[in-house]
């Protein structure tokens, strides 16, 4: 049981993620989480404003079910399958973050500096989460997929477009991490 409660190493987690991809293929579907954002827009009535959202969202009910499952999975994993171990980050990562005034690094899943209520309810903190979410939602649809659709599924299928998209993910991620985050914190 201890082995389950401790964080899982990459060589266990990676193959299990591949299992998700392959299971969905065997169920006649493809793994892609970002499509759900479009489906949620359609359900909210976005079809009245843009043709992009005019599609039968009921065909995506299976994927929304995966979302509901993921929410439940997140609950189960943190509530019943965790021993509260801190995240074993590289000490350099910890000191880099400390230099940006991050405290309690790795003690929670997400930093309080971004997701703690004090940060969230400040103008700056609120704007950061809104801009971040907006970029994710806009970029993923523009690129036609996210980490699951491109980095996992697309690369597994040896698709060149997915490789280009993943290179893009890294261009954006590196610019944010190395140049913009130090300006924000």
């Amino acid at each position, binding site marked *: 049981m201890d082995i*389950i409660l401790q*964080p*899982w190493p990459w060589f*266990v*987690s*990676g193959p*299990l*993620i*591949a*299992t998700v*991809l392959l*299971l969905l293929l*065997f*169920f*006649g579907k493809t793994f892609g*989480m970002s499509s759900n*954002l479009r489906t949620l*827009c359609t359900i909210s009535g976005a079809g009245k404003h*843009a043709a992009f959202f005019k599609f039968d969202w009921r065909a995506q009910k299976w*994927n929304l079910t995966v979302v509901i*499952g993921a*929410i*439940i*999975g*997140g*609950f189960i994993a943190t509530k019943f399958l965790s021993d509260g171990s801190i995240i074993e*980050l590289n000490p*350099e990562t910890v000191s880099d973050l400390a230099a940006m005034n991050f405290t309690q690094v790795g003690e929670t899943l*997400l*930093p309080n500096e*971004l997701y703690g*209520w004090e940060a969230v309810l400040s103008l700056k903190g609120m704007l*950061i*989460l809104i801009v971040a*979410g907006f*970029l*994710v*939602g*806009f970029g*993923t*649809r*523009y*690129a036609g997929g*996210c*980490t*699951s659709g491109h980095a*996992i599924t*697309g690369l597994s*299928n040896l698709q*060149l*477009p997915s490789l*280009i*998209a993943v*290179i893009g993910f890294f*261009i*954006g*991620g590196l*610019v944010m991490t190395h140049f*913009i*985050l130090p300006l924000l914190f």
Partner: protein
Amino acid sequence: MKFLKFLFVGVFFGIVLVKSEAVSWYRIYEMFKFQSFHMYGIIGSAVLIGVCGIYLIKKYKLKSTEGTAIVLPPKEKSFVRYILGGSIFGLGWALAGACPGPMYILLGAGIYPILIVIIAAMAGTFAYGLLKSKLPH
């Protein structure tokens, strides 16, 4: 009943992503700083097994549980949309520390401020839908 298997896959996915710490902002930050092999190991081993699995599916022309051939729809050929869209996504991914799967998982994990990210991501997707015809693809 038809949806139960998808619910199961979702629960499994959520548990794996929490236990692997891939839902952690810190792990994404560490990845983009090239300070740990952890995330590269996760994505790399997932892709390695994925490549083998998809190769076998194609080689033996395996069928899905619905009795249909398993096909992966090819992505349309382009460069601009993938590099631009990908970069925009990357900026958001490194800032929020969450992509469109972990967002929901973190909500289940009790991190309620992530709802702001989810709603903003819907707004971003909506904005793309409005601007689609004006963007280079």
